[in-house]
């Protein structure tokens, strides 16, 4: 009997948290940006990436967009017209975490990014060269694939400013990666995030 106040206090705290969470979830779903369809309810969703791919070369005036004299609405213009990533990238492949898998996207011919602003420049073929980076401890070893990296990037993006061009010459560690050095310069900011361990740690130890 003595402990009763504690017990009910804990139960009440739990219930209040639940109610709070419920309320929070409601506002969360309401403030989500409206789907692109909300603006023109009758029209079918636009073809994937069509508005983007058609833009290079052909000048777009953007007159259809919005009045430049009005104050901007806060938030990126994603909910407008077909600038919503959930519409444009609807059919893009995703990895096990649900992030866009840009490697699969170019291998499956879904994206065709330009190599250069000079359309006459011949493309440089990607460099097919895997390097195994041993991980200390029980984690499977890392395979660093040059192929997807040199598809998107130049050698000069990494060598020599981020990595010395010599196997094992870079003091890489997971702590440094999480702090935004080495692989963390891109992974976790632009390329797939660090939380997806299994895309890097692929080679189990014997």
């Amino acid at each position, binding site marked *: 009997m003595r*402990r009763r106040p*504690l*017990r009910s206090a*804990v*139960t009440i*705290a*739990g*219930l*209040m*948290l*639940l109610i*709070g*969470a419920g309320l*929070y*979830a409601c506002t*969360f779903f309401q403030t*989500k940006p409206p789907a692109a369809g909300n603006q023109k309810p009758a029209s079918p969703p636009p073809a994937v*990436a069509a508005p*983007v*791919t058609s*833009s*290079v070369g052909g*000048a*777009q*005036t*953007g007159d259809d*967009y*919005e009045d*430049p004299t009005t*104050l*901007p*609405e*806060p*938030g*990126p*213009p*994603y*909910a407008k017209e077909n*600038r919503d*990533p959930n519409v*444009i*990238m609807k059919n893009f492949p995703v990895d096990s975490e649900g*992030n*866009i898998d840009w490697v699969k996207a170019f291998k499956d011919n879904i*994206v065709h*990014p*330009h*190599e*250069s*602003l000079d359309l006459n420049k011949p493309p440089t073929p990607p460099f097919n060269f895997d390097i195994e980076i041993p991980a200390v401890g029980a984690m499977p070893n890392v395979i660093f694939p040059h192929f997807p990296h040199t*598809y*998107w*990037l*130049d050698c000069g*993006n990494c060598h020599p400013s981020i990595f010395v061009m010599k196997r094992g010459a870079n003091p890489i560690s997971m702590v440094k990666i999480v702090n935004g050095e080495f692989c963390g*310069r*891109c992974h976790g*900011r*632009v390329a797939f*995030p660090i939380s997806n361990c299994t895309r890097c740690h692929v080679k189990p130890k014997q």
Partner: protein
Amino acid sequence: MRKLWLALGLIIGLGGAGLLVSSGPTIAGFYADMVLNSKAEKRGMPPVVFPHWLHRIEFKCKVCHPAIFEMRSGSNDIDMSKIISGQFCGKCHNGTISWKPVQCARCHSGQPGLTTGPLLGVK
């Protein structure tokens, strides 16, 4: 019995707390969006939000890095006169490759107070 109640309360409480944390604040945006706000807000414009996802559908990283932009947040000294004279964003947003930089809100689309760097709080 007392222990049961305690356990029940704890489970509900922790569950509720977990829900709160996991559904954290989300704002309109997408993974890899970059905020540029070294000068914009000081000079009375909302921060610039640069969407990587949209540009990389169209261009490989090597088009922009390092030829147009240094690959580190905040290390590019960008201002409007440079953009209008064809540097940085103006290499493309000049009416030939893409739209002219006349509709300010298309780039200056961030909420006030964002700091230069990756846009936080998106999924």
